[in-house]
């Protein structure tokens, strides 16, 4: 075995903390039944951040409109349950398929141009979808949200209860499946080629990688996972509203990912936990002005350096320069 393939293999092996994290996730379902609703929210946010990590952390595409796919998934799942059939798993598959297809379609728009152009286009797509959901009120309920969604039992057996235990188990299962899928993806040759084109698009192109096709593929996959997160939200809450397309959702998920760190898949999970706990804490103290602290946190985070803040042991170390 050559040195290169050995080092690649070493990157892809499972670490002890990955197993520990998965174990903690599973145990949290057993040990914290009274917090299932909060945990469910955290897991959905983590899944959403995971999908952003694929395009931001691995492919280096800056997006300000990732909520577009979250919203698509959410509305697709809610509408499917309302109009076609209430089975959650089939609804999930449909929502993911629609989000993936739209992701592939919209990805054409982000292939060209600079970071600014991409920001604008992603922001624009999310805004268009928001307007669409707002204006098609015969279908989506407009500004009132889509009401009257009744979900069937999971696997035909487990009803969604008020305490959210079934919901959390369901979300957790989807999260872990997507995590494993994403992990397999980024450690495949495809994943490494994404990192290559993130670091230097021109060079990646000139060693024979087809940059555009890869971007389309990863954007579609990320859109699908974001759609899954949106579908989970709609299915576990039985409700879908315009809020899923809002700008602050796109900004929030970016913050979550940055708190946890980009480019290693688990950032979304850690970020979501920290973010939701902070949110709960600050909201309990001053519910109206939570956004102010969020903003302050963002500014400080960037000023200090987002790599540094998350690694306290580097705070007092000597500066290398």
């Amino acid at each position, binding site marked *: 075995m050559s040195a290169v393939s050995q080092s690649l293999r070493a990157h892809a092996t499972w670490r002890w903390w990955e197993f520990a994290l998965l174990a903690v996730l599973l145990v949290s379902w057993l040990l914290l039944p009274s917090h299932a609703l909060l945990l469910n929210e955290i897991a959905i946010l983590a899944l959403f951040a995971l999908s952003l990590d694929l395009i931001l952390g691995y492919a280096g595409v800056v997006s300000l409109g990732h909520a577009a796919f979250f919203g698509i998934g959410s509305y697709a799942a809610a509408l499917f349950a309302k109009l076609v059939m209430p089975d959650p798993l089939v609804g999930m598959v449909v929502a993911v398929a629609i989000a993936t297809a739209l992701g592939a379609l919209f990805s054409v728009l982000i292939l060209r141009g*600079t970071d600014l152009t991409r920001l604008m*286009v992603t922001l624009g797509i999310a805004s268009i979808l928001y307007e669409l959901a707002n204006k098609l009120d015969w279908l989506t309920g407009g500004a009132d949200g889509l009401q009257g969604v009744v979900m069937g039992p999971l696997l035909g057996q487990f009803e969604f209860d008020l305490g959210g235990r079934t919901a959390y188990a369901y979300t957790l299962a989807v999260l872990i499946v997507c995590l494993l899928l994403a992990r397999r993806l980024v450690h495949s040759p495809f994943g490494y080629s994404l990192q290559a084109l993130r670091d230097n698009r021109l060079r990646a192109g000139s060693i024979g990688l087809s940059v555009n096709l890869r971007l389309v593929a990863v954007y579609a996959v990320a859109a699908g996972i974001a759609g899954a997160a949106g579908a989970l939200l709609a299915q576990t809450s039985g409700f879908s509203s315009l809020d899923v397309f809002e700008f602050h959702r796109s900004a929030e998920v970016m913050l979550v990912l940055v708190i946890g760190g980009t480019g290693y898949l688990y950032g979304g999970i850690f970020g979501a936990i920290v973010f939701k706990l902070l949110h709960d804490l600050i909201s309990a103290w001053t519910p109206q002005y939570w956004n102010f602290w969020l903003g302050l946190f963002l500014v400080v985070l960037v000023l200090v350096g987002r790599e540094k803040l998350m690694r306290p042991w580097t705070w007092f170390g000597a500066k290398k320069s």
Partner: protein
Amino acid sequence: MLTLLFDGIAYGMLLFVLAVGLAVTLGLMNFINLAHGAFAMAGGYITVLAMSRLGVPFLLCLPLAFVGTALLGALLEPTLYRRMYARPHLDQVLFSIGLVFMAVTGVDYVVGSMQQNIQLPEWLKGRFDIEWVGIGKYRSFIIIVCGVLTIALQWVLAKTRFGSQLRASVDDPRVAGGLGLNVNRIFLLTFAVGSGLAGLGGALGAEVLGLDPTFPLKFMIYFLIVVAVGGTTTLTGPLLAALLLGIADVAGKYYVPKLGSFIVYTLMIVILLIRPQGLFARAGGGK
């Protein structure tokens, strides 16, 4: 029909004054400043508060808004913004979104979340008719002020010493610094003037666009469209883009109100799809 065109032009001129500062920061410092709308909001609130609390006349409020926001910009540039220039775009986006959130909630806390109204002086109210075209007095006032500003800006950029220093710094900050220009000072001045212009635009636009704490979020995308579509290398690019946007938005909302802001967003995506560098970018000005 012509009234509509006129309103669109007034709206576009307003957008231009609001966004021109952003075009400069983006073109000059290559910095994506999503918080630009916060400066415009600051200008609007300075005007509203000075008028209602202190009884300052409207015309005096406009320069006040300009100076106030320019000072704010001059304060923030060296303390916060300057550190961000060399950072990746993701950091800049996060940083300025953070600023927007703080500004929105800060204003909400201090002033309250209700919509603020501006009491225009009598001679700016109402409209007059030329032939069959009804023309709002305030709208024509906006066009005149913004037009004068545009010409002045163009003159400063093209004819004065400061203008050529600025253009030199835009083209290549390192070489400009090497030639002995104090690039930092030029950046500071430009940033302050750009913020001041946004403040002035906010003050002028408070009556037309409406003013409440969510202003920076609501209009952020409009400013960005102007800059992204117009390109950042010239003044005429953003000006034409702003006029186009203003007319398209006003006409779209009048003729097909069901579509709402749909037209604008679609137009932007289509333009960016065809010309990713903006409609009026200089060829080969690779930034």
